């Protein structure tokens, strides 16, 4: 019985220890580009929330689609109204895991593979991406790039604008994480 108590106590310590493994930021940058020679389509949000758990190598990401800012107001309206349907699907999120080895103590930039599920417009799709991560005690710097197609997320592009919007959308992410404080 003592052993059991010991185990429970141990796992509680392990649980509490979890918090020290968390790094978080609420103002990560995401920008996306689906420009073509005919039209510049670029937007940026700096209100993404993301967490890295260096214990389990889990990465989570979430952003409100209405937080993306466009140069042209009308484009922003169409993005939310016609393509992302932000009223119905307010959030885009990513849930993944770093699958290649990473030494969180090294403090040197390293390229890693991340596998996960990207959810937007109500559709979840498996994605693999490469990210550059610079571990550190007081901050973790990460940047990643991922290419997606609107079709994969059930976002139809009407034929009238098909030549103006790139087939593949490039999404770039830049985040500087700080240790999570309870």
């Amino acid at each position, binding site marked *: 019985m003592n052993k*059991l108590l010991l185990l429970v106590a141990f796992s509680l310590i392990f*649980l509490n220890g979890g918090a020290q493994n968390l790094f*978080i930021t609420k103002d990560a940058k995401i920008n996306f580009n689906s420009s073509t020679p005919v039209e510049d389509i670029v937007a940026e949000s700096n209100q993404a929330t993301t967490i890295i758990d260096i214990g389990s190598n889990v990465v989570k990401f979430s952003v409100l689609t209405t937080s993306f800012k466009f140069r042209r107001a009308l484009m922003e309206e169409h993005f939310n109204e016609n393509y992302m349907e932000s009223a119905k699907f307010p959030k885009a999120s990513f849930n993944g895991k770093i699958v290649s080895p990473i030494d969180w103590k090294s403090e040197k930039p390293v390229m890693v593979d991340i596998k996960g599920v990207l959810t937007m417009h109500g559709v979840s799709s498996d994605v693999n991406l490469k990210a550059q991560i610079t571990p550190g005690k007081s901050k973790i710097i990460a940047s990643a790039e991922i290419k997606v197609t609107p079709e994969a997320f059930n976002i139809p592009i009407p034929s*009238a*604008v098909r030549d103006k919007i790139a087939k593949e959308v490039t999404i770039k992410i830049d985040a500087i994480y700080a240790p999570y404080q309870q």
Partner: protein
Amino acid sequence: MKNRLFISTLGTVIAVICSISAHGQDLDSLMEKSVKPQTVYATATFKSTRVVNGHSVERMKKNQLEFRVSHRFGEFNMGSYYFWGLDQGTIHLALEYGLTDWLEVGIGRSTYEKTVDGFAKVSLLRQSSGARNMPIHLSYLSSLEVISLNTDPAMRQNFSSRMTTVQQIMIARKFNESLSLQLTPTFIHRNLVPTELERNDLFSVGIGGRYKLSKRIALNIEYFYVYRANESAISQSNPTPTKYYNPLSVGIDIETGGHVFQIMITNAQAMREGGFIGKTTGAWGDGGIHLGFNISRVFSFSK
């Protein structure tokens, strides 16, 4: 001994499962907590800055310039000689600009009585949910119309006689993705009216609505009730009074990228408040209706 080993193994398994699942939940709820509470504004309550003829609560955002071309053909009941009105046309050209996200100004010129106009539209309240809850949009419009037509001797005497001012409040709500409704109390002052029976001050209440038929196509209906008691009474000085009607317009908005194309049927010929609220003479009942369209193109001056 065996029993104790079993219990402790079980304990370990449970503890590990608990810690793993608690951990997973931790992260998700932590994400939820960390997302800052945000105000989500209802956007695109109407596709355009006009419902059909009248203003909607929408305006150009900061540094966005809209060029509008509006056109109304003649009345359908003009018959075959005038190709049912299509031979005739009234045009309104306008440039409208968002000085800030809440203030829009515009200038325009119409072939209808050779009117020149200018307006300012202010967004006072924006419908929102989330961190800030607001059930309606509220906008205020003030405009001035100057008739430059040179045939009326009374107007030639005094420049102020050419002026009409419009004060309008727009109260709108986007009920859901498809349906938006607007209530539009309006006060119009005409410095000079053709006969003494016509009112210098006109009160009117407009109701407008849009229903989205698809993502890019919407049906719009707009009606203005105009209070004008005794205006059409027959008197000695006014043996054949002009009969005025309340404007009713039905339109379709078609949006294609940077353009919004509005096509409509309306009994109003004019495209500004002083005209279509104050001086609509077409009657739906006897085919006094116009086919018309508005074309809008938006240019961005944002960096």
